[in-house]
């Protein structure tokens, strides 16, 4: 156990020595890995933030039911009763056309337009907050309400949230593809750097084999080398991402404030950040594994 542990410590130290011996190229490798990782991680962060917005709205889907301009009070009362008894509705609020007009008057620039009209163009309306309902049933409900007597038009206010949701789904797929491509790229980068390292050490490998080193012993420092390089790259990637978000947020904050919102992009959750770093490390290990395996196979059987 002690000997096993000290072999790992030695392999780890050996890997660090190799990194230090080739500082410039190690640094460049780590940068390449970091930047390549920052791209999909950044996309993931932005999608996550957008999804947060979409979720906030689609959680409380709203329907606006506008009555026909000439709807009779009896129709209106029947409709109200029908709506209030519907188990799918969380809250039903009646907005009389006068109130809607008064509301509209408060909006800057519109008041003059309305004053020019000699009659109220707005219909009576019900604003309905629905209980949690899947997006695809929302459309059906809107159509169902639209067929009721006296109803002129039904608007599902969360349709855009649904579209955003679908868009995010597409974006997510795109990012998964990008991540897969870049992951393959990272494996290739490590494969190549480890290959060069193996070649500069081929004499040592040959002698170690002749003297009774197991392939595991020969492979181990290269695994550490790949994994350390990947991990360092992952951390650089996270730093690049955090820096970019901070810059973006400066702009977004001022923009959001003009809309009275405190919206800003949030960084990866700690677990996700850890996963990115570990994944990068794993890719580095994989590149090293493939590289050393190819080389040792080329050396032939013992």
């Amino acid at each position, binding site marked *: 156990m002690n*000997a096993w542990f*000290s*072999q790992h410590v030695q392999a780890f130290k050996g890997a660090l020595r190799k990194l230090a011996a080739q500082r410039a190229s190690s640094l460049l490798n780590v940068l390449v890995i970091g930047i390549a990782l920052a791209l999909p991680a950044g996309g993931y962060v932005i999608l996550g933030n957008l999804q947060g917005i979409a979720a906030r709205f689609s959680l409380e889907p709203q329907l606006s039911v506008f009555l026909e301009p000439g709807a009779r009070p009896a129709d209106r009362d029947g409709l109200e009763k029908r709506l209030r008894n519907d188990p799918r509705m969380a809250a039903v609020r009646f907005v009389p056309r006068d109130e809607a007009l008064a509301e509209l008057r408060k909006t800057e620039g519109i008041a003059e337009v309305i004053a020019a009209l000699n009659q109220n163009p707005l219909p009576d309306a019900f604003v309905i907050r629905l209980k949690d309902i899947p997006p695809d049933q929302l459309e059906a409900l809107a159509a169902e309400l639209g067929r009721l007597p006296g109803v002129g038009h039904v608007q599902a206010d969360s349709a855009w949230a649904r579209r955003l949701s679908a868009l995010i789904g597409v974006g997510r797929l795109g990012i998964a593809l990008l991540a897969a491509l870049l992951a393959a790229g990272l494996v290739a980068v490590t494969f190549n750097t480890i290959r060069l390292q193996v070649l500069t050490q081929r004499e*040592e490998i040959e*002698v*170690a084999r002749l*003297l*009774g*080193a197991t392939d595991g012993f020969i492979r181990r420092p290269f695994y550490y080398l790949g994994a350390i390089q990947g991990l360092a790259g992952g951390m650089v990637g996270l730093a690049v991402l955090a820096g970019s978000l901070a810059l973006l947020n400066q702009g977004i904050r001022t923009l959001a404030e003009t809309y009275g919102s405190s919206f800003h992009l949030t960084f990866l959750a700690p677990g996700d950040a850890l996963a990115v770093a570990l994944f990068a490390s794993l890719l580095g290990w994989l590149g090293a594994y493939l590289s050393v395996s190819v080389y040792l196979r080329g050396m032939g059987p*013992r």
Partner: protein
Amino acid sequence: MIKFSNVSKRYPGGQEALRNVSFAIGAGELVFLTGRSGAGKSTLFKLIPAIERPTSGSVVVNGQNVSAIKPAAVPILRRNLGLVFQDQKLLYDRSVIDNVLLPLAFSGFAPKEAARRARAALDKVGLLSREKANPIQLSGGEQQRVAIARAVANRPAILIADEPTANLDADSAAAIIAIFVSFQQVGVTVLIATHDMALIERSGGRVLRLEAGELVAGGDPQ
């Protein structure tokens, strides 16, 4: 300790390097393997740590049939042998002591114990004062001795050396052979390949003689 039975070795090129070789070496023996250049000494040497496999016949080392050994068992076999190669195979990118430490690193010694053994081995060949030097800074004979120190650092029961005195003057060669004799005296089985007959005669060990791949003297009566 080492037993060859009807061993033949034909290289892929078609050259038959060993033909029907049989002999046995007992524990604690000192044996010289001799013959002209190309007689098959290095080939025989390489069969013992399974660097090469015989085409036919069997090679048994320490009770283990190494002619049919599984690849996974090869490292353990080699760790238990002290090997001095004809071309030494020292690493010139590190110090003398690091060369000696190399086989100790994968034999499971703790760093302190490994360093102790490496120093003891260098002391044994009279090179402790050069431990920090690079092998390139050493003379040919000194490099031979580093290779011997590396071979014995593990304290193997069997020590085999392929031409450890090649290209050395008579005095240096005698000094190196004396080191091997001192190992034999503490119970190590020693096999040395050499074509230096004068040296063999002075040392007085058993002699195996190869001629064009055939064992012509020193083997078992068939």
